[in-house]
């Protein structure tokens, strides 16, 4: 990849009917069979969708001292999913905005995989291609709180799912952990393949459309940073 490659070399992604699309429509309109408030500090509900599996609902609260941050929590999870979709990586579980029992929030597909912190030496349970995708994704979003409590691993397939994209991880900074990126570098999985570069091109070609979905200054600034990092990765071709 030469420096300054023109993004017009990449065709803008077309809207396709994918499994994710149908899951999102189920999340948006599917009949809810059961809702259970979970014990925990952040308002979270487990949702059973009739005939269609489970989802996790995270409320957006407007009336607490932390309302702004909680609001961004929802916005940023949707934004992370939007970035993932443009990359066509399939790392972030499908998520939509929805109102449940009068509460506004986001509803995200429940993934039946283990939280990485439940797996000793999780890096031996993941497929290299998923590790690289996840590392690229975290590099692009500048994730500052990717510890083993906020990604999931399907040990059977080696697939990684990324969760918990919020104010702490993307804007203000959290644990300063970049566990996935570090493991990819430890394994010397830093050179980007043609497929990964193509995905970066797809993102770059369409990233400005994400700005149309928000007028929040912090989020707009965040999207610009993602755009800059995407161009940088395309130019260097490496995560090293």
């Amino acid at each position: 990849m030469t420096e300054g490659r023109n993004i017009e070399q990449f065709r803008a992604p077309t809207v396709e009917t994918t499994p994710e699309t149908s899951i999102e429509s189920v999340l948006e309109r599917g009949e809810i069979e059961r809702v259970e408030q979970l014990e925990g500090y952040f308002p979270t509900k487990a949702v059973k969708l009739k005939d269609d599996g489970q989802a996790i609902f995270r409320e957006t609260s407007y009336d607490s001292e932390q309302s702004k941050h909680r609001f961004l929590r929802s916005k940023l999870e949707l934004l992370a999913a939007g970035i993932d979709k443009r990359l066509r990586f399939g790392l972030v579980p499908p998520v939509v905005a929805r109102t449940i029992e009068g509460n506004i929030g986001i509803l995200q597909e429940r993934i039946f995989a283990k939280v990485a912190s439940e797996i000793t030496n999780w890096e031996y349970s993941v497929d290299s291609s998923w590790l690289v995708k996840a590392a690229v994704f975290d590099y692009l979003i500048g994730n500052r709180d990717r510890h083993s409590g906020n990604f999931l691993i399907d040990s059977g397939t080696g697939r990684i799912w990324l969760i918990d994209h919020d104010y702490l991880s993307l804007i203000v900074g959290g644990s300063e952990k970049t566990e996935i990126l570090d493991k990819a570098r430890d394994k010397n999985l830093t050179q980007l393949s043609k497929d990964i570069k193509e995905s970066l091109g797809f993102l770059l070609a369409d990233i400005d459309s994400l700005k149309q979905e928000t007028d929040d200054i912090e989020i707009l600034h965040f999207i610009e940073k993602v755009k800059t990092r995407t161009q940088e990765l395309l130019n260097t071709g490496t995560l090293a």
Partner: protein
Amino acid sequence: MTLFYFVDLYELDKDAKQKKIATFRMQKDEPGKVEIDGDQNHPVLENIRGEGIFDYKNSRPGKLYPYDGMSFLENLKYYFRSGYLLATDVQKHVVDN
């Protein structure tokens, strides 16, 4: 009367029911000593004892471990916030001696 502070940590099972995997408990009179009730071999607990957690509340560098007492307890809810693993806020419990 003895005052305890505690935080419960839950995981979500396949049926979308929460299962408590640990209670982190600290006696007010022993502020530097958080005890962990639960399966000590549970990978999540081993991980947290070994790796520690970040001080999200104060954005201070470094890590917090059970021996950091209340600071450790106060930050568990930020570390475990996904729904798959979810921690409560710090709660109080009084035991009559």
